[in-house]
């Protein structure tokens, strides 16, 4: 039992391997390295978003506003680029991350200072941010011919044989891994989720840890705002509409516990990959895309049931013989 718990990621890897194997049976070219690299690239944005969401869920909160944040930030940077094509792209990326983080901080402040439950706050900002997208754009959209070539080209460039977009994901994965496992901030995010009252005893400010998690998820959503609009070369109000649930689903499949405190960078990435493979592979193996939703729903349920089994609380043991056994 505990071995299973420890190897949550291994289980996911096995599930993904199985999935790839099944797809490969029907469509041999799927398992080719180039194709797998392409799948990874296609899933990059979802992976990055899932990492941000994970940080929030770990603190026993939830961020429903990520997709709207993405749309709003994406729109603002697209407008920036359309109006000031001269601004270098790295600055645009910084802008995206800063705006996203600011929106996340807004959520975080309401949760921290007013103590409003995260689900209520982000349910509100979910609609506010998306509405704001429409307003800042004046009801219009930004398409390819208004974006500068560099804006579109950056993530498509190749570096060491991989598209730059994939590198964004790789850097994000490494950064999250380091932050979540090797920094006090990351560890306090875990601690707050595992046991908030014990966190207080350990000298951690619970509200502040939640605030930081929201800033992180916001920053990540902002970054993905840029990546999204430049990838699909369109910034519009309905960009990523309803995507927040995909992000949460990726986390859940990846073994991030909605009750907080449990989840790993590897899990979130694999959960996103699992969803990514399903959505990219179904068209390839000629399964009607109409099956996609039911499959991911089943995957979520399976993941929750599996995770719940490994999380079952173990009681205190009084009888000495029972403890020895």
């Amino acid at each position, binding site marked *: 039992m505990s071995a299973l718990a420890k190897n949550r990621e291994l289980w996911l890897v096995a599930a993904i391997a199985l999935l790839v194997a099944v797809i490969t049976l029907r469509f041999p070219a799927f398992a080719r390295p180039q194709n797998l690299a392409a799948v990874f690239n296609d899933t990059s944005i979802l992976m990055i978003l899932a990492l941000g969401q994970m940080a929030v869920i770990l603190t026993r909160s*939830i961020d*429903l506003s990520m997709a709207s944040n993405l749309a709003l930030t994406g729109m603002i940077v697209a407008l920036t680029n359309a109006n000031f094509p001269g601004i270098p792209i790295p600055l645009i990326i910084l802008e995206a991350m800063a705006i996203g983080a600011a929106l996340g901080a807004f959520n975080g402040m*309401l949760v921290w200072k*007013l*103590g*409003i*439950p995260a*689900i*209520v*706050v982000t*349910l*509100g*900002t*979910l*609609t*506010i941010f*998306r*509405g*704001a*997208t*429409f*307003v800042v754009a004046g*009801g219009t959209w930004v398409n390819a011919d208004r974006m500068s070539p560099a804006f579109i080209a950056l993530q498509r460039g190749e570096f060491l044989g991989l598209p730059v977009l994939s590198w964004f994901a790789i850097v994000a994965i490494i950064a999250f891994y380091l932050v979540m496992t090797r920094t006090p901030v990351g560890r306090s995010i875990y601690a707050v989720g595992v046991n908030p009252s014990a966190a207080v005893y350990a000298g951690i400010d619970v509200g502040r840890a939640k605030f930081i998690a929201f800033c992180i998820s916001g920053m990540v959503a902002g970054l993905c705002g840029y990546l999204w609009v430049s990838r699909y070369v369109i910034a519009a*109000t309905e960009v990523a509409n*309803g995507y927040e*649930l995909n992000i*949460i*689903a990726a986390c*859940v499949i990846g073994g991030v516990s*909605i*009750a907080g405190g449990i989840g790993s960078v590897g899990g979130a990435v694999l959960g996103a990959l699992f969803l990514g493979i399903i959505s990219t592979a179904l068209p390839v193996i000629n399964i*009607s895309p*109409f*099956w*996609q*939703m*039911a*499959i*991911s*729903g*089943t995957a*979520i*349920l399976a993941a*929750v*049931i599996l995770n*719940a089994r490994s999380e079952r609380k173990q009681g205190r043991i009084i009888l000495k013989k029972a403890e020895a056994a």
Partner: protein
Amino acid sequence: MSAIETSAAPRRIPDRLDTPLKGAVLSWEALLIAVAVAIFVINSLASPYFLNAWSLSDLTFNFTEKGLIALAMALLIISGEIDLSVAAIIALASTMMGMALQAGADTPMLVAIGIGTGLLCGAFNGLLVTGLGLPSIVVTIGTMSLFRGVAFIILGDQAFKGYPASFAFFGQGYVWWVVSFELTLFLAAALVYWFVLHRTSFGRRVFAIGNNPVAAQFSGVREARVKFILFCLTGLMAGVASVLITSRLGSTRPSIAQGYELEVITMVVLGGVSILGGAGSIVGVVLAALIMGMVTFGFGLLNVPGIVMSIFIGLLLILVIALPIIWRRLFGRRPA
């Protein structure tokens, strides 16, 4: 505290303190009524078309279906659980009705199948949550994809249409003059839910579970059973809503009622139900439904794009919840 004195004649404890008017004035419902009245007045001033029986009647269609689900969802949230799959249940129930239609079912049969499907979906959620002890938010994110996914598998790019004329009554019919069947049903259901929540022992148990599930269990409340019933009720109401929407649209697509779940939950939270469970009232939910209907319809009359109204609703949600907290911070008494 006073010393050791075993008072021979116990002092009488009053049932309740003389109900202070202040309490009623500062209640959540009062706040909502004020907001509702304000919006009503603003709407009447802003648009010459608002104060008109048919307009007001059309307005109700903006919230009746979601409101019906919100009634059951309110109970579920008070008990500390949530159901994100209600919109998907609508889609699946509508699809089942469509299949039954193809098989030649008549109107009563269609209604039974729609409501029955909703009930079964709710029971499925309830079983997963109470039987396996899983967190409802995740379970229903999963079943949300599953239920709608099944609708997509069955229907694909097709649509079911050709519902019998008698079926159209539920979503398009009027009971009397401008009073639609949907509105009548909503008001009747609100009355029933108000009664169940505030006037029956079942409702009392729902509150007890939401406030302290462990203590409730210790006090002999069968928590799992109550929650299971609540999931079934929520599914059932989604089934009812599905009948209404299908009737109103006269057709079924798997994408029907997309995104309704968040609107329903917004309604419930705006209605003063604590998302953490344990507190809330049906009156609040009904008022919140009315407010959301008036806001969307009022903005619609002014031809404000829907997306702009959603900003307003989002702000309303956060402000209505934040203001009392800020108020307490600024002028607050310390908790007794």
